[in-house]
């Protein structure tokens, strides 16, 4: 008994329905896209999809952790925006300042995550409203910091983390892959990760089983903020400037990606591989709308419809059979 309890619990039998279904949808979608548009399978287009998907993938991984633990983080978009403006302002074109600037935004992200996590886990505030308030505060702070104008100052070297290519693949894809591997490890191979799943399943039971639920829950929000910072760095490198609205929409898209990928809203069930499929489904659809040359207003309508339909069709409730 004691020996098994002390060991890290093995991952439960993988529930492939959610994630596997999402990969199937992605595959079908890719086939349809390549029929509809001859440019879809073009090498340059595929690289573009990779570059576009990388920031969304990273932020969605963090979002998935929070959702698995039974929470939600709507401040990630604002954290990404803040990251782009702070990193470009502090870097100010000086290659020597790249690392200090990156460390600064990481520290900011950790602090934001800690505040969110402390309020939600210790004070017991509602996750949606708390992170919503954080979003308002952070985007206001970004406005005050920049006085509303876009900031330039990213060094060409920094931009290589998105624009550079390794073995013909955009560097940002490797960052996203690294984030995925890290997430997979902490969720599947550590006590902390198992506790996140347990929290989403039943927080009270987890607490009564002797786990430090507050610590784990707060950790999930810190992770989500840090992933949002990393996503913000990749985004800044891709668009080449810092803007207070750069991250707008990522909160919605990251949550949508997690849910389309089979993660249950309310927590407890889900796989990060499904989230990656969810991200690629969204990006491929956005890309397709682009390739078909639809007017921009129509693109926005299609984006909204895709998200509503995708989430409505693929969402699962946290409690089975309800």
């Amino acid at each position, binding site marked *: 008994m004691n020996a098994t309890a002390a060991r890290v619990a093995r991952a439960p039998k993988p529930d492939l329905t959610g994630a596997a279904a999402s990969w199937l949808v992605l595959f079908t979608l890719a086939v349809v896209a390549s029929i509809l548009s001859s440019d879809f399978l073009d090498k340059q287009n595929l690289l573009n999809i990779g570059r576009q998907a990388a920031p969304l993938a990273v932020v969605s991984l963090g979002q998935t952790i929070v959702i698995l633990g039974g929470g939600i983080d709507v401040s990630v978009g604002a954290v990404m925006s803040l990251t782009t403006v702070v990193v470009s302002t502090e870097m100010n074109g000086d290659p020597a300042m790249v690392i200090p600037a990156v460390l600064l935004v990481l520290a900011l992200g950790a602090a934001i995550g800690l505040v969110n996590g402390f309020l939600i886990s210790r004070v017991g505030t509602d996750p949606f409203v708390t992170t919503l*308030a954080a979003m308002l505060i952070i985007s206001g702070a970004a406005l005050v910091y920049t006085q509303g104008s876009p900031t330039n100052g990213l060094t060409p070297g920094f931009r290589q983390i998105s624009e550079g290519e390794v073995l013909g693949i955009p560097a940002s894809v490797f960052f996203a892959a690294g984030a995925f591997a890290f997430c997979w490890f902490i969720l599947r191979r550590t006590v902390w990760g198992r506790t996140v799943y347990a929290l989403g399943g039943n927080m009270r039971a987890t607490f009564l089983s002797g786990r430090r639920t507050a610590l784990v829950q707060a950790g999930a929000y810190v992770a989500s903020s840090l992933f949002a910072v990393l996503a913000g760095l990749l985004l800044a490198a891709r668009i080449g400037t810092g803007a207070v609205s750069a991250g707008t929409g990522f909160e919605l898209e990251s949550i949508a990606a997690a849910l389309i990928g089979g993660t249950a809203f309310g927590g407890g069930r889900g796989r990060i591989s499904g989230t990656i499929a969810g991200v690629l489904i969204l990006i491929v659809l956005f890309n397709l709308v682009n390739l078909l040359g639809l007017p921009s207003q129509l*693109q926005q309508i299609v984006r909204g419809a895709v998200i509503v339909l995708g989430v409505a069709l693929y969402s699962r409730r946290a409690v089975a059979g309800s």
Partner: protein
Amino acid sequence: MSAAHRSASRSVATRVRVHRAVNRWLGPLWVWAVLVTLVVIAIYTVPEFATVDNYKNILKQAVPLALVAIGQCGVIVLGGIDLSVAAVISLGDTLSMGIMNGGSGSVLFAIVAPLGLGLLIGAANGAIVAKTAAPAFIVTLGAASIVQGVVFWYTHSAPYGAPALSFGELGFKEYGPLPALVVLFIPILALALFVQNRTRAGRHAYAVGDDDQVAARAGVDVTRVKVTTYALCGFFAALAGIAVATRTGSGEPLAGTGFDWDSIAAVVIGGAILVGGRGTIGGTMAGVLIITLIENAMTLKDVSPFWQSTVKGVIVLIAVIIAALTAKQSLGRLLHWRPMDAFRPRAAGPPAPAADGGGAA
């Protein structure tokens, strides 16, 4: 039972009724206390604040937000949320301006068409939320993206249309001592309060928000309640769009920006919780006035508009912390009393301070 005992218990029962009525119709009193405190602070610190014209201005500015917040309050009581209201406001504004087109079109149609469309959008939101596992904020955010796209397509992303003369005057006319918009708003508010407190529909909304499965087993048609409430939220958002239109010279494709978060903030400040079952239109109105007052005071004080978002965020954060502490009963002892305590033997004295929700019974 002695006569003395009977009369004592009758006065206690009266007190209970009064407390319940206050909580239902006005919302938590501490929110109103915060509002009064803010007014007093503003009178002493903000120049030009304490003038009749400015008070009228605040009330007039508050009307569109108050309209959206009524609808949002209903949805939040259900345990849902509607993030499409901002886009629906933009739609209401631009569509009514587009139809009137400076007086060549019918004013009546310019009011009815957006309202009908708002009702439809809301009903669609409600149907998806009720029938699928999709969380409300994703459904409504997606709907926001769709509706805003339609608005951009309709207006070619530029100011569009113009008000008819009689319609445009509405934003500046006064009936008696009050701005016309405020006078027109009062019966709407009265109707909303009546529906919340005195109708089966209002009661069912609280039942569904508290626990929809229990409500369903008790015979409530949960789907119908959800679809109706979201539809009304869409309706109120469109109405708010029309109210915005009375104050401007042409339809603005982004007229609704910010109303989504502001309306949620107002409802949350008013004592509602997002899991549903708690919240009042009365408290929401206090929240609306607090937000409008702070915006007004910051503008008069020449504070950079960039700070507004941060200040609002801080207010929402404080409100949500108070709500959480109240639920844990640590702060609740100071802020709320529990009317039922009056039934206890010692309750003939002042109401016993204890925690209770700010919501309707």
